[in-house]
C-alpha cells in the first residue's frame, strides 16, 4: 500500500517533468487533463466512451494472462472483430433487434478466430505466443486495410473504411446527445461474466491453475493445450466484441484507424487492475481519463497529447519494476536445507 502511494507520487513527478520538458506548465497540464476528462457531463460521457473501448481488450488481456498466455495481440483481435462487424453491418439491412446481435457476434467471432490462431499455434506446436500475437497484430492491420480498400471496397467509401451502417444497426445511446451507448453496460456485464467464470467454474479454476503453476496443473490432469486454445478463443472473442462495439457504437462504420492502440494500452490497464476483472474496470476508467483528457490538455495547456503516451509508458515501467524487483522481506537460505 505504501509502495503504491510512493509509486504514485513518483509517477506524478515524472509526468510533471515530462510536461515541463515539453515546455508547458505541469499544473496547468494536469488541470486541463482533468477538466477535459471530467469537466462536465459531456466530458464525462466521452471519458466513459474511452473507458468502454479500453475495457473490452483489457478484459481480454487479463483473461489470457490469467491462463499464463501472454496475449499481446488484443489490438489485432479488436481490429479483426471490428472489420468483420463493419463488413457485415455495411451489407445488412435488418431491424436492430435481429441485426445488432448478428453484427456483434460477427465481431466476437472474428476476434476469437484471430486469437484462436495464436492459441492453436501454441497448443499444437508450442509456439511462443508473444511473437505470434505481435505478428498477428501487423497482419490484422494490413489485412483490414487491403480488404476495405481492395476486394471488399464499399461503393461510396472514400478512405480505408466501409460504408456507413444503417442507423438500425447503431448501438442505442444511453445518454442523449453523447456517444455513450449500451456498449458500456455490455462491457460491465462481460467483466462480471469473466469474474464469475474465473472464480466459480471448473473451467476458470483450470485456467487459473494453468497460469499460476503449469507443472502442478499438468499433474492435476488439466489439459493445458485445450486451456490455451479455449482461453485465446475467449480472449480474442472479447477483444473482437470490443471492436464491434466501436464500429456499431462510435464510428458507425469500420475504419482502419478505429483503434488508437486500445489493444496495447489494454496490457497496462490489465496489469494495473492486477488481472482482476472487477479492478480492471476501475483501471480502464483511469486510463479512459488520460485518453479523453489528452486533447484538452494539448489545446488548453499546450502540452503535446503524446505526453499521455509517456505517462502510460511510465506506468508500464513502474509495474514491470515491481514485478521483477526482489520482494522485500523474503526469506532466503534457510528455505533450502536449513
Amino acid at each position, binding site marked *: 500500500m505504501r509502495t503504491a502511494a510512493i509509486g504514485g507520487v513518483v509517477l506524478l513527478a515524472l509526468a510533471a517533468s515530462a510536461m515541463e520538458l515539453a515546455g508547458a506548465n505541469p499544473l496547468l497540464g494536469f488541470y486541463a487533463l482533468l477538466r477535459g476528462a471530467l469537466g462536465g457531463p459531456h466530458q464525462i460521457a466521452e471519458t466513459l466512451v474511452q473507458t468502454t473501448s479500453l475495457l473490452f481488450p483489457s478484459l481480454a488481456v487479463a483473461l489470457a494472462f490469467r491462463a499464463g498466455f501472454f496475449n499481446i495481440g488484443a489490438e489485432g483481435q479488436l481490429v479483426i472483430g471490428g472489420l468483420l462487424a463493419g463488413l457485415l453491418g455495411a451489407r445488412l439491412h435488418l431491424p436492430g433487434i435481429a441485426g445488432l446481435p448478428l453484427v456483434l457476434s460477427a465481431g466476437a467471432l472474428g476476434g476469437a478466430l484471430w486469437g484462436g490462431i495464436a492459441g492453436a499455434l501454441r497448443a499444437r506446436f508450442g509456439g511462443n505466443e508473444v511473437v505470434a500475437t505481435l505478428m498477428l497484430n501487423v497482419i490484422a492491420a494490413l489485412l483490414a486495410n487491403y480488404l476495405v480498400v481492395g476486394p471488399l471496397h464499399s461503393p461510396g467509401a472514400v478512405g480505408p473504411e466501409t460504408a456507413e451502417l444503417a442507423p438500425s444497426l447503431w448501438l442505442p445511446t444511453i445518454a442523449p446527445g453523447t456517444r455513450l451507448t449500451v456498449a458500456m453496460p455490455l462491457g460491465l456485464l462481460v467483466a462480471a461474466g469473466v469474474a464469475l467464470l474465473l472464480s*466459480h467454474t471448473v473451467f476458470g479454476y483450470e485456467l487459473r491453475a494453468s497460469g499460476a503453476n503449469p507443472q502442478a496443473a499438468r*499433474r492435476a490432469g488439466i489439459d493445458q493445450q485445450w486451456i490455451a486454445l479455449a482461453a485465446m478463443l475467449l480472449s480474442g472473442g472479447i477483444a473482437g466484441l470490443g471492436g464491434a462495439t466501436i464500429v456499431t457504437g462510435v464510428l458507425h462504420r469500420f475504419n482502419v484507424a478505429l483503434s488508437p492502440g486500445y489493444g496495447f494500452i489494454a496490457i497496462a490497464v490489465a496489469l494495473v487492475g492486477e488481472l482482476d476483472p472487477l479492478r480492471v474496470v476501475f483501471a480502464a476508467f483511469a486510463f479512459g481519463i488520460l485518453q479523453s483528457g489528452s486533447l484538452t490538455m494539448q489545446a488548453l495547456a499546450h502540452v503535446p497529447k503524446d505526453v499521455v503516451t509517456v505517462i502510460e509508458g511510465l506506468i508500464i515501467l513502474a509495474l514491470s519494476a515491481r514485478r521483477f524487483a526482489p520482494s522485500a522481506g523474503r526469506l532466503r537460505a*534457510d528455505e533450502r*536445507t536449513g
Partner: protein
Amino acid sequence: MNVPGRAALELRAVRKVYPGNVCALDGVDIELVPGEIHALCGENGAGKTTLVEIAAGELRPTSGSVHAIGNVGLVHQHFELIGRLHVWENVVLGFEPRRGVRLDAEAARARVRALSQSYGLELDPDALVEDLPVGIAQRVELVRELARDPAVLIFDEPTAVLAPAEIASFFATVRALAARGAAVLIVTHKLGEIVAYAERATVLRAGKVVARFGKGQIELDAIARAMVGGEIPALAERVVTALGMGLVARDLEAGQGAHALRSASFEVRRGEILAIAGVEGNGQSVLADAIAGVVPSVGSLELEGTPLQGGARERIARGVRTIPGDRQREGLIVSWSLVENAVLGDQDRPPVRKGIAIDRVAAGRRAREIVERFDVRTTSIRTTVATLSGGNQQKLVVGRALAGAPRLLLAYQPTRGIDVGAAALVQSSLIAARNAGAAVLLISFELDEILALADRIAVIYRGMLSATMLRDAFDRGTIGALMAGAQRAS
C-alpha cells in the same frame, strides 16, 4: 600449522536477523577444534545453512563475532562447479596460475595432480565435470577447497547424493583430512552418520543451540529428541492385509538421456508398500511420471487388471494419486488458498464439480477434513499456501492424495525437507493407506525410510530395476551394493 587444542574457528554470540524481522540465528556459540569431526544437526529452518554461510564468510552476521585461523572451505550441497569445464579448470578457478597474461594450464594440471595425490583423492584433471558421477564431482569440489589450504572444512549435507558405499569412502577421506589437522564441520540430518563418524555434535533448533554432545556422548535418540524438542511419534502399526491385484508394469521405458527409465517390470499389490531404493538421478522421477501419466512411456501398465492409459486426468479418475517430489513446483499452487489447493486434481469430478461450477462448500469441507486429519497448522483454510511451513505444505499434499481413497498411491520422496515430526506423520499415513488396501509405490533416496516402510524393495540403478526383495530378507549391505551398481549375485 594449527596449534592443537585451540579452536580453528570460533563463533561467539552470533545472531542473524533477515529482513522482515526473521531471526534465523539467536546467540549461537560454536567452536571447531583441529583434528575433529563436528556434526551440526537440526530440523529444516533451524538455521543450519545460515550458520554455515556465516562461518564460511559468505554471509555477515547481524551481531556477534567470527574468528578463524586460516581459510574456511565450504563444500556446497549443490555443487558449484561448471560442467562444461575440465576438472583442472574448475579446481583453479579464481586463482589460476599464470604465465604472463596467459593461463598456465600445465602448472594447473600439475597442481591438481599433486593435490589429489597428497590427499589420496583420485582425479583425472582432464575429465569434463559434466561427465562425472556425483561422488567424483563432490571430490572435485573438495579438491578445489583443499587447494586453498583451509584450516576449516565445512560440508553441507555431503551425503545426500551418495550411495552407501560412496558414503563410507567419503567419511574415510574426511577422517584423513581431520587427522592431518583440519577442523571439519558436517551439516547433516542423517543421525546414523553422526553417531558413526562425528566426535562432537551440536544441535540447533529455531536458531538456538539446544544441545551439545562431546566425545563419547553422542547418542542417536538423544540427538533426535533435541532436534524435535520432544519425543518422536511412533509409526503406525502395519496390519496383515489381504493382498490384491494392483499395478503391474512390464518392460516400462520412458524418458531419454542419463536419467531415463530403461527397463522396469514390477508389481505393486493392493495392501502393500513397494519401495524403490536408489540414488537420485537413476530414473526414479521418470518412472513416477510415467505411471502418473505425465510423461509418455512404452511397455505395459495395468491397474487392477485393466490397462492404465491416457494422461493424468484419466489416471486420476482410475484412483491413481501422487505425492510429487517437489511440492511447491509440482504439487501446490502456493499463491492459492488451502481450499483451492485441497481440490486440485479433483476439480473435474463430484463432489467438487457441480455442473460447470466448482462447489465451494464441498471444497471447503475437503480442506477442513485434510487440515484436521493431517494436523496441518494454519491460521485459516482461506490463507495462501505460501504462508505454511514446508512440513505443513507437505501434509496438505499428502492429505489431498489420501482424501480420495486412492487405489494406487505414488509417493516420491514424501518426507523430503520436512521435520522429523511431520515426517513421522507422513510415513504413518503411507502405512495407513497400505492397511486400508491401497497399492503404495514409495520412491525414496533414504534407505532408512525405505527399510522402515517397505513390504518389498526393488533397487533402481541407471534406469534398470532389480528384482524385488521381501521384507524378511532386507539386507542393508545388499541394497547398498545394488544402489551403487553392483550386479545382483544369485
